[in-house]
């Protein structure tokens, strides 16, 4: 019986080390995005992370951004929602919203992340259609929608838009 415990323990150590080893080899360091937590940030599947603005005002200096002045990108505040937090990055060309991405999203558990990730492309197209943060949101992902809209509005506020 004692020997059995040793075999079990030896197997357990081997299994544990084996999985961690495999994981270490197959999973390279995950990309880190601004404002996101390491290892948990997930770019929105809807669009590649857009480069910072081509105009004079990059997202880091939203104060000078004004309507009608080239292309600007800015990231809104990290918003808490029921199951995690997210931040929205908006790109504005002239006075038009040309792209929205989610550089940082973090959820308590994978199911919420899945839901959010399903919702984010829909939210993005709503924003691009409405050209504002006044969107209906996605039903079934109410919290995510609210956080998305709030963070977006914060970003737009930084650009002194709308």
């Amino acid at each position: 019986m004692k020997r059995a415990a040793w075999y079990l323990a030896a197997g357990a150590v081997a299994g544990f080390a084996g999985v961690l080893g495999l994981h270490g080899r197959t999973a390279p360091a995950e990309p880190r995005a601004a404002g996101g937590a390491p290892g948990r940030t997930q770019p929105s599947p809807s669009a590649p992370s857009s480069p910072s603005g081509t105009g004079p005002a990059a997202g880091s200096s939203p104060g000078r951004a004004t309507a009608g002045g080239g292309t600007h990108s800015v990231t809104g505040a990290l918003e808490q929602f029921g199951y995690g937090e997210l931040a929205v990055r908006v790109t504005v060309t002239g006075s038009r919203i040309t792209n929205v991405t989610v550089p940082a999203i973090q959820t308590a558990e994978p199911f919420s992340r899945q839901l959010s990730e399903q919702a984010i492309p829909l939210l993005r197209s709503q924003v691009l259609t409405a050209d504002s943060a006044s969107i209906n949101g996605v039903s079934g992902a109410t919290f995510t929608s609210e956080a998305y809209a709030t963070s977006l509005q914060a970003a737009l506020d930084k650009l002194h838009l709308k």
Partner: protein
Amino acid sequence: MSAPAVRPGQALPVGRRRGRRAPARPRVPVPRPAAARIALLAAGAGLGAATALTFTAETASQLRTPGGPATFAGSLTGMTGTYLALMMVLLVSRIPVIERVLGQDGLLRWHRRLAPWPISLLVAHAVFITVGYAQAARSGLWHEAGVLLTRYPYVLIATIGLGIMCLIGVISIRAIRGRLSRETWWLVHLYMYLALALSFAHVIVLGPSFVGHPLTRAVWSLAWAGTAGLVLAYRFGLPVVRSLRHRLVVAEVRPEGPGVVSVICSGRRLDELPVAGGQFMLWRFLTRGSWWQAHPYSLSALPQPPYLRLTVKAVGGHSASLASLRPGTPVMVEGPYGAFTRHAQVRPGAVLVAAGIGVTALRSLLEDLPRKSAPVVLLRASRPADLVLGQEVSDLVRHRRGQLHTLVGDREQAGIDERSLRQLVPDLRRRDVYVCGPEGFVAGIVDLVKRLGVPDEAIHHEAFAL
């Protein structure tokens, strides 16, 4: 069903087979301890891997979020609990290579000892996850429980599964189990398979180690499918195939002593049944009342084609009903099972100890021992009438140049203690000890011989749970 050509009473000169050997019986697969060791290593590796998977799905920043620690504890308990539940199923799946080494008895002991762990871990899992998610969502515990049950896919049915598991856990607690009949308990126990099936989907769909990890998802699903396959093959397929091959029917029921009957079955191709003396089978007598339940009873003799004999004492509803079996009743069997055989022997000699109806396994084991093995046999009974099969045992012992000691009376007068054992078996250090009987008796003898210096690997036992 036509009557057998030879009357079974005459055809079963059990214990008096001498001179011409019966036709060679099939080689009984010899137990390979290495198989059990490999299985142990694999079981440990799986546990380690399942634990590691929860770590790989976790990051430090996640732990720092509200509810992070509780959620992590939830996935850790969930993974380990589910893995142990899988082991519980494997322990009773009757995989022959492992069964041969550890014996049904040993496997069931592990199963029983392990049982509280998966259930409490899974309960902890449910609690931790609810707490963690409630903290993350900044909502109340009950509200969050409601959200989990209604919004999250498969959580409701998994919770029902957990409820079934807990119910089965509660009725398996010794004090409560004692009040239920074996039949009821067994039938309720079957619902465990349902409970496990119900919980499977939510693991795959929601588990942090599986979402977005197709490989772990596939491995995990394969492990469960494989386990289900093993259960189906060895608990269902093999018994059906064996039963169809041998076509056993009851030939005769013969009283052996107070409350004890021998059931003699006849069947085809019994010379092909790979059985060793000391093993038992699960018997299912296809009568209207009891076709749905299979019970373990020892073979009380090696098969003598076309006959197979089991000897049973009436202690429960099923064993009592055997006395009224009619000849011609079809019988289905599972097995033979058990590591209580001569193949387990590690020393040159053997001492065989049995109490009460434990004599049945001892009787067939004795028959399997070689001619000059000179076994010492100790039979313990409270009354002389309880020494069933006494004449057969005595013949077999004489034939093997052994010694038979019967200890009849109450425990004070005729119990087996250190003094009597030393006196009756002076060369104990050269012998393996085989003990068979009720649980309490077996435990007592095992303790005693361990104290006298017999190592674990030379002690073999088969206990009857009443």
